[in-house]
């Protein structure tokens, strides 16, 4: 009896329930006659598509700003980079898809680094209420970006509304620029030798090697970072502020660094997301994206104080796995149903609430 309890404790009840739900969904899709190769391709694609956005949560949690709902800031930076890249690639013949991806990443990362530092400065002033403040900073930034999308002086027909002549579209097709370079076999097959292996089909199952490489690279970078002196100091700052201060480490600087890295990863994350998805979604589309990322890492087993890269991988897999399998399964059972969307809302917000009640409850008892 105690052994099973220990087992449950180790995995965590929510993770266990959601894991079982995921397995049930996969098993259920077999008798329903769903094409299993397509189902698994979709799981793989969505898992990796979201993983970097989820990874962006790790530095935030580790440095002590807790769940970074304000990752929207990074997302907007990434979107700005991506739109600029699309504009450049459609106006200049010389800018190919790879150059476009590079431009998008460079602009996104630079912007995110600058804004991330400023955002970190703000969060240092509101210690203890980071989550509420960051949520509303995130919302504000998305609302502000809506005004930016309407006023950007871009000319490309792919970006702007055809009639008004100003204002970017809601959804921008990335086919002409960097869409699918890392994940879509139909795109990669037109590329020269080593690049055409970035995504390929094996018996119907699509393997997006490019995405796996990018995720591995980013994870490796974050892992290395946390092995470095700065990273260790940052983890310490997040864990015990007083102790860290006594050890002569500037807690505030560590928090700024962590926030900036989180914001940068948010920018990279949305660009990778968009290139996999094939479309850029502007305006209010990214409004709740940070909530998905937060929910994912919590499902993966992270708390509001500690997070590891393994939590990212597990969390993104479980969360996106459920999303990508629930859709076809439910559609088979009751067509045109909104059920998966409703389940997503309940699961993602329920898990955040659960995590909040855990940490704050524990905090109270310590007092």
């Amino acid at each position, binding site marked *: 009896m105690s052994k099973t309890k220990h087992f449950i404790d180790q995995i965590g009840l929510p993770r266990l329930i959601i894991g079982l739900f995921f397995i049930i969904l996969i098993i259920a899709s077999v008798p329903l006659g769903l094409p299993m190769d397509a189902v698994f391709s979709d799981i793989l694609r969505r898992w990796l598509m979201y993983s970097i956005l989820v990874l962006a949560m790790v530095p935030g949690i580790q440095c002590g700003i807790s769940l970074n709902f304000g990752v929207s800031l990074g997302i907007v930076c990434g979107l700005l980079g991506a739109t600029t890249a699309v504009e450049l690639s459609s106006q200049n013949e010389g800018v190919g898809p790879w150059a476009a991806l590079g431009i998008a990443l460079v602009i996104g990362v630079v912007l995110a680094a600058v804004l991330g530092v400023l955002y970190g400065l703000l969060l240092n002033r509101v210690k203890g209420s980071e989550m509420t403040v960051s949520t509303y900073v995130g919302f504000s930034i998305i609302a502000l970006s809506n005004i930016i999308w309407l006023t950007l002086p871009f000319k490309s027909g792919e970006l702007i509304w055809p009639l008004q002549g100003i204002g970017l579209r809601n959804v921008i097709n990335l086919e002409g620029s960097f869409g699918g370079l890392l994940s879509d076999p139909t795109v990669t097959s037109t590329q020269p030798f080593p690049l055409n292996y970035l995504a390929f089909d094996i018996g119907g199952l699509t393997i997006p090697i490019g995405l796996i490489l990018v995720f591995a690279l980013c994870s490796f970078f974050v892992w290395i970072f946390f092995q470095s002196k700065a990273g260790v100091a940052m983890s310490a700052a997040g864990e015990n502020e007083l102790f860290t201060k006594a050890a002569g480490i500037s807690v505030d600087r560590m928090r700024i660094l962590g926030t900036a890295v989180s914001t940068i990863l948010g920018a990279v994350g949305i660009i990778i997301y968009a290139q996999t998805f094939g479309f850029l979604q502007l305006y209010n589309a990214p409004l709740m994206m940070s909530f998905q990322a937060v929910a994912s890492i919590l499902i993966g087993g992270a708390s509001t104080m500690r997070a590891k890269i393994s939590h990212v991988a597990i969390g993104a897999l479980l969360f996106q796995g459920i999303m990508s399998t629930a859709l076809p399964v439910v559609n088979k059972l009751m067509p045109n149903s909104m059920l998966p969307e409703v389940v997503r809302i309940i699961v993602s917000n329920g898990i*955040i609430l659960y995590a909040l009640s855990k940490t704050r409850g524990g905090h109270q008892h310590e007092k």
Partner: protein
Amino acid sequence: MKNNGWVKKFRSFVFENKVMLLFVVLTTASIIISGLPLTVIAGSVFERFGRNGFLVLALLVPVLAGLGLNFGLVIGAMAGQIGLFFAILAGINGIPGMLVSTLIATPLAMLFGWMVGRLFNRMKGAEMIAGLILGFFADGFYQLFFLFVLGGVIPITHEGLMLPGGIGVKNMIDLKGYRMPLNDGSGGETVKGFIEGAFDKLPIGDLITAITIAVIVYLLVRGVMVMMKKSTFGLRDLALGIAAAVSFSLLQIPAIKQLLKINNLNFLTTLTIVLIVIAVWQMARLVYAFILHKREGTEKTDVEVKSPSDVLSQSPDQKFLQKSDSRRSLLILLLCAVIYGLTYIPPIRTIMRFIRIPVFTYMLIAGVCYFTRWLLRTRIGQNMRTVGHSQVIANASGINVDRTRVIAMMISTVLACWGQLIFLQSLGTVATYTQHVQVAQFSIAALLVGGATVQKATTKNAIIGIFLFHSLFVVAPEAGKQLFNDSQIGEHFRVFISYGVIALALAMHAWKAKIKPNLGISAVTGKSDKDNSKIAESS
């Protein structure tokens, strides 16, 4: 020296009210840029005040109890919408429809409020973020209920309300009602579920009749109590009785009956009536104070003989009180006269004539203002204030902290539910799946614009906030169009403002809470006080 004091006072006033002042500037600028006639702006602002006033006031109680801004308002709004749905499904029109909605929704709201309060007690210190997430979480269940349970689990057949498949509710619920065949076999049709404007368009005559009946019932109850010798009739009962009799007999005159069929007053009339009522009330007070003064003057000589020491300690104090009271009454009378004089200025008069006041809705809003103030004087209100001040102190003085917080949440949720019902009957349609989503967002933004903080919010903040915030809301699209040739920019700008003002208020709250220890030290040294305010101002 005196001058210096004024400057200091002015500076601290600006600093304390910076969000509000910023909004005054922003709103004024937008009004000028938009070029819209003031009559139009004022008309829609007062309409929006009637719609949103109740919802914003629902936020006050949790702030008092230290729970911060109640993002869980959304949940009360959901309860209201559930109640309204069933009332329309039952095909009840008008005021009875609203009453049935309220009867269904209120117990639900109480239950939800209790649950939210219990949850918040598990997450002390994180109520706001928890409330926000809880709103989204509850939205999931709300969608589940309206998309699958209604029609799927609970069998419902209603062509107008339900989706074609019979499972799930349509995106839009029309409060203008739905055409239904008559049951008498004549093949005729009738409209059922017409609730739009049930409160807003309630004829004033009906309202007065209802109030008169309520007063008569109250007096009858009092009469029974007097007969059972548990109470005695007082001056107030007599006044009420006379007022009820007069209004009832006046209502029998056909001309007045015809006149009172209108359902709203323009602002000019409303203001005149309100000013007259206030003036009469203050005059009555003056007269009363005068009589009391005279009577006490004669009584005092008697008392003085009995115990001189008692009078010595009391009489100057009493005299002072009366003096300041009468002075206040006189001041109010003067103010009434000045305001009434102002209404004769032509532009103001025109604008005021354009503003329509839905009487009953405004009375309800006034009622909830009064309720909030009354609550403060009760034991539970005092407990809430103590809990809001310090849970440790409250606990030490024997207050059940958790229970007080739960009650605060229940009150807020029920008020939010009623507020949403008032909002919806005014609007006339319900966007089934999105109507409640922004409720907390916009209400909180309006309250903060009025100068409220996470720890302190009054009815005054709420009222000023609604006017400022909704003025900006009305003119922003047009101002955007004039400035950038694109009304969408104005629309996005007002959304940005509503998010931004909350972000700003939360950040300033957290910041202030953080520098508080420093302020404590600076109060002693005196010198660094300036430095601190400089730091705070540079934000």
